């Protein structure tokens, strides 16, 4: 890490880290395309739970987390920035949860 670029504790992420994260993102993309072609079902207690969408969202969520933590430097940032980033996604979850709870509990 270059000492001259470290001003007031601001971290310079090494290029090798970026390349590893990039490789992971590409792998995730290939994985999500490949997985889409298979019936991913979870058998439990006689029920078949379809998991394709869940798997797709988990992969996308992991890719997003990698971008946020490393490309957007949140992993190397202050707690305050971490709170701002987390707050955005928290309120998004609230939006999804309450809206879907409404619609999916309707008979019409």
């Amino acid at each position, binding site marked *: 890490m270059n000492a001259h670029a470290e001003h*007031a504790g*601001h971290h310079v992420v090494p290029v090798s880290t970026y390349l590893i994260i990039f490789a992971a993102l590409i792998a995730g993309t290939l994985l999500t395309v490949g997985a*889409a072609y298979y019936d991913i079902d979870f058998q439990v207690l006689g029920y078949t739970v379809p998991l394709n969408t869940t798997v797709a969202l988990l992969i996308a969520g992991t890719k997003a987390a990698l971008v946020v933590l490393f490309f957007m430097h949140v992993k190397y940032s202050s707690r305050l920035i971490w709170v701002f980033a987390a707050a955005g996604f928290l309120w998004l979850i609230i939006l999804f949860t309450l809206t879907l709870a409404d619609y999916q509990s309707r008979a019409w």
Partner: protein
Amino acid sequence: MTEHGTASAVAHQFDDLEQQREAGSLGMWLFLITEIMFFGGMFTAYAVYRYAYYNAFIEGSSHLNVPLGAANTVVLIVSSLTMALAVHAAQRGKKKAMVAWLALTIVLGGAFLGVKVVEYKDKYDHGLIPGALWNPKHEGGVAPPAEMQLFFSLYFAMTGMHALHMVIGIGIMLALMRMALRGRFSPEYYAPVEVSGLYWHFVDIVWIFLFPLLYLIGLHVVKGHG
């Protein structure tokens, strides 16, 4: 330390460079939060209508070109890498490298938009634009469900809004390149590059979710029972 074109890298209202840098990042994150909720609203609409009209959504999705969508996903991921490398170059004071990485980011963004144009034209040619122009081919003599228009409304609204954000992002990158070429950045002051990077990565994240939800739904259904 050498200053380029500015009296001091620290504006008068800040105690020091670190506080100024943090304030800038927080400001951009605040804006990104509003963007998360903005796109979040459309994702919610998608969730509601997909839940209600799953088969129409699968049929709609089957009209989208998966290789093109996947290629675009890769293009954006590479552009996020080049953007991160541009910020990295700015942190190290490497002007030429920063300009080169920014230029590459712009080219990749342009490539993404070019593919979108091709896709949109294909939808137009196949009568898949909802509303007055809706005229899809009848598969085996049967008209596709009317609810398929909902899928395409969301497709155009969400990818269209995303594309608009890409265009704005490219404009921002061009402005950054201009500033960089004029020597406005240094290892002490590169905040505009950093916060623009945050914006660009966010637009990438939106597409990371758009791609599987629009292009990849029902692929296992169609293949398994086709």
